[in-house]
């Protein structure tokens, strides 16, 4: 079972809203991005910079013994869009199996219906985050 129902729910949640409220929902995600646990907060060097994003966002992926994926992000509060993207990915992927994460459609960010609200170019950052998460998962399950 590689399909992630949480992704369908997220897509539906965003799509059910008018454009302006999609931004409000993204802001809620941004506000609720989990803090880094201490083991990463004290070791920023362990985190990977997402170069494709206009703001400094860093991520780290753990794959546990059960092959489940755990995601950690940090981005400044002055970059709420980037934080929002990270938080949506966290909601969608954290705790899922490595197999399921690798099977996520690379275009998933575009299916949220945010492109019109934030501009297609800004969506590049979210696609890049997803690609980097998958790469780390591949490296850590190889």
């Amino acid at each position: 079972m590689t399909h992630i129902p949480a992704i369908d729910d997220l897509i539906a949640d965003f799509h059910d809203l008018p454009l302006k409220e999609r931004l409000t929902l993204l802001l809620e995600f941004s506000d609720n991005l989990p803090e880094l646990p201490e083991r990463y907060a004290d070791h920023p060097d362990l985190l990977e910079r997402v170069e494709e994003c206009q703001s400094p966002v860093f991520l780290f992926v753990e794959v546990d013994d059960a092959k489940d994926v755990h995601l950690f992000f940090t981005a400044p509060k002055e970059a709420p869009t980037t934080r929002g993207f990270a938080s949506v990915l966290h909601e969608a992927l954290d705790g899922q199996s490595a197999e399921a994460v690798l099977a996520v459609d690379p275009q998933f960010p575009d299916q949220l219906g945010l492109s019109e609200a934030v501009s297609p170019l800004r969506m590049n950052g979210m696609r890049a985050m997803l690609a980097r998460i998958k790469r780390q998962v591949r490296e850590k399950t190889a």
Partner: protein
Amino acid sequence: MSVAFDPSSSLAQYAHPEVLVTTEWLASNLGTEGLVVLESDEDVLLYQTGHIPTARKIDWFTELNDDVLRDYLDGEKFAALLSSKGVKRTDTVVLYGDKSNWWASYALWVFKLFGHEDVRLLNGGRDKWIAEGRELTRDEDSFETTDYPVIERNDSPIRAFRDDVLKHLGSPLIDVRSPQEYTGERTHMPDYPQEGALRGGHIPSAVSIPWARAANEDKTFKSVEDLKAIYLDEAGIKPGDSVIAYCRIGERSSHTWFVLTYLLGFQNVRNYDGSWTEWGSLVGVPIVKGAEPGAVPVRR
């Protein structure tokens, strides 16, 4: 109805002090009839995280650009946009934003393409307002929409196209990008890889003055004396010169355009918004690589 200018002595040094307001002035004038405050940021959600009370949001990406043409809005769309923001043609518009007003300057420049008379920048922008501990809110006040007139955009005084740049070669050109973009080490700005060009370098004879040099640590504009040292002494621009500034897509160079036009009083400054994403990929135009401006190419 225009709102009285900010008489602050810190602004009096500039050629056009009427285009700037201080945070103190804005704080005491919020809610004044005829004043509309607009926030223009790089990050599309930043406004929603908290903004100056009464401020409305304007987004450079989703609102000021045409969807399918690489161009700004036309007169009808601009009228519709400003009407939807509740702006009257006679209103005083104060713009502010993140990153030393980088995106606010860009919006101001677009407003000037349509000749909106009274547009001002909040000196120091969003960051200074916050640093001073001033009020922010997530509330969006309701306002009445207006009937902004359809004004035909008038590009030529302040906007340069690629052919204008070719004709201009030999007169002062300012490249306001990062040093790495100027030399050609990078074909895009650090952190902005998706907005690249085919080749790296700069327009021949352009002088490198990164835009942010015009701003202080607190995001306000530098003093006239400091600005003169940069643009006159260092870049070699002389009073009366006609100048073109460019960057990657014309946003950072709007900031420099603002500085030269309103703070130093140059009367013939244009922004080349095609900038490096156009010039660096354009067939048949010369570029220069490296740290030297390079010679003006012989016209063929």
